[in-house]
């Protein structure tokens, strides 16, 4: 993964971004909207992949980082009347701070204990949202009012509820995060993260403070997930407690596993795949979850490293 010519991976990633941009002109309305949503959630998956794929830390609580961004941004607009950029920043900051606190506490554990601790914290976060229902809307959630979802940039104002603006914003966010994760995993820091995943004891004996390195990774991961949550609130206008539930901690794990853990594009592929399998099968039968389940089992059997992970293993060793 290191020391290879950087041209190919960057060309591939730029190609994917250009393809997604081109798609915005040809896709019918329904798929246009769905893809915008998928790109925002793929950012969530990329944040999860940062920690799970590269550092090997399996968290079952990432819904709290996503919803920290979601509520941080959403409530800032609803209750404080903040502008879109300020609310977006507030959401990201909430996620980063939460990740720092959770990281310091949860990283005292590892393995199964880490999974349980993160899951418990996320559950606390979920219950806190329900408890303060007068502020958060409880299990009903809240709608971010349409007039507030306008991004004013100097003299122009962009209406985030318009499909084109929404798609373009989602693509911009996705592209930035994709290129950031690509740069991180190809950096020296990325090499240390993989070393921690492969053998933490050995990494310590090379002089690395693995706790600090992991803590930074938790904060980076949590911040990316919060960015996705903040964007979701502002672009799709709904802030709901279901996003803090355990289901939304499992989903990014599933997306990443499907697409390929520790691949930069895997999270997008996994999210896309999962959404479309559900979308297509639910058009035929009400028992679509059965088909989804079978598809997942087949994938695990034939592509145990996820779609991109297996492609990298068999054909394209240079994939980042």
């Amino acid at each position, binding site marked *: 993964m290191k020391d290879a010519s950087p041209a190919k991976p960057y060309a591939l990633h730029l190609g994917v971004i250009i393809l997604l941009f081109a798609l915005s002109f040809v896709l019918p309305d329904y798929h246009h909207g769905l893809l915008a949503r998928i790109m925002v959630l793929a950012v969530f998956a990329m944040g999860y992949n940062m920690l799970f794929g590269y550092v090997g830390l399996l968290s079952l609580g990432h819904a709290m980082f996503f919803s920290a961004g979601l509520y941080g941004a959403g409530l800032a607009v609803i209750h404080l009347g903040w502008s879109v950029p300020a609310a977006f920043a507030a959401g990201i900051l909430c996620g980063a701070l939460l990740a720092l606190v959770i990281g310091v506490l949860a990283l005292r554990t590892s393995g199964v204990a880490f999974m349980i601790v993160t899951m418990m914290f996320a559950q606390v976060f979920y219950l806190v949202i329900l408890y303060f229902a007068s502020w958060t809307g409880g299990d009903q959630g809240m709608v971010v009012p349409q007039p507030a979802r306008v991004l004013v940039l100097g003299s122009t104002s962009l209406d985030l509820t318009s499909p084109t603006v929404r798609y373009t914003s989602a693509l911009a966010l996705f592209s930035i995060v994709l290129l950031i994760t690509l740069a991180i995993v190809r950096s020296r820091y990325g*090499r240390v993260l993989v070393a921690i995943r492969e053998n933490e004891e*050995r*990494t*310590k*004996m*090379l002089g690395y403070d*693995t706790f600090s390195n992991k803590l930074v990774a938790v904060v980076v991961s949590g911040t990316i997930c919060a960015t996705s949550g903040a964007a979701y609130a502002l672009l799709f206008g709904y802030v709901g407690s279901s996003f803090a539930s355990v289901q939304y901690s499992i989903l990014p794990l599933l997306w990443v596993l499907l697409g390929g853990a520790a691949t930069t594009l895997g999270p997008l592929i996994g999210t896309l795949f999962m959404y479309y399998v559900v979308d297509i099968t639910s058009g035929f039968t009400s028992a679509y979850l059965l088909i989804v389940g079978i598809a997942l089992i087949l994938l695990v059997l034939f592509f145990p490293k996820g779609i991109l992970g297996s492609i990298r293993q068999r054909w394209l060793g240079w994939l980042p």
Partner: protein
Amino acid sequence: MMPLLTTKGLSRNFGGLRAVDNVDFALMPGEIRAVIGPNGAGKTTFVSLVSGRIQPSQGMIVFDGADITSLPAYARVRLGVAYTFQITSVFANLSVYDNVALPVQRTLTDGRSKGAVRTGVMAALERTGLADRTHMLAGQLSYGHQRLLEVAMGLALKPRLLILDEPTQGLADSEIDNFIELVREIAKSATVLLIEHNMPVVMQLADRITVFNAGRILAEGAPEQIRANTEVQDAYLGATHD
């Protein structure tokens, strides 16, 4: 001359077992010191205490005049105490290059220049004779080469004290000869603490030998003295003499 490494009353208990028992030890800079002793004598526990992989029950460890007893392992590595593992633990899924790049990039003070990592990696790989295997996965190397990679990683840390835990275990005779040369080469720039079972290797390399038995130091001296020591012969070599 001040010793590079000193331990005073160093002990470590595992349950009721006193694996290392009240050890006073001193190592002079530039020395090649071999630590020998029967299985279970506490050699590996002793160097694990020195490297910080486990914490002592009692006693203190002084490195280059500073008390390092409570420092975590990674901080000791940064001071120059490098440990190569008894059981080979290279990063099997990473390339040979990446394995060595990890220690190199950390020791670089100039973190920016891209060429610096490559230069450092290639220097360490050339010293250990692995330069033609840069892009192989470490796990695909032969056992002997994995041991050499382990040493290359230790070298790349630019250690002042290099602890080699049974480095020749599992090596072929021809590989052992090269290895002896390599350790002599390393000793020009670092102090070497070597745990070794292979007596010819010990006799050829060591300036001094420390013999462990049942967690204590049984004897210490030049190779000839140790060879002649009847107590050592009893405990370790299992010789009967009349």
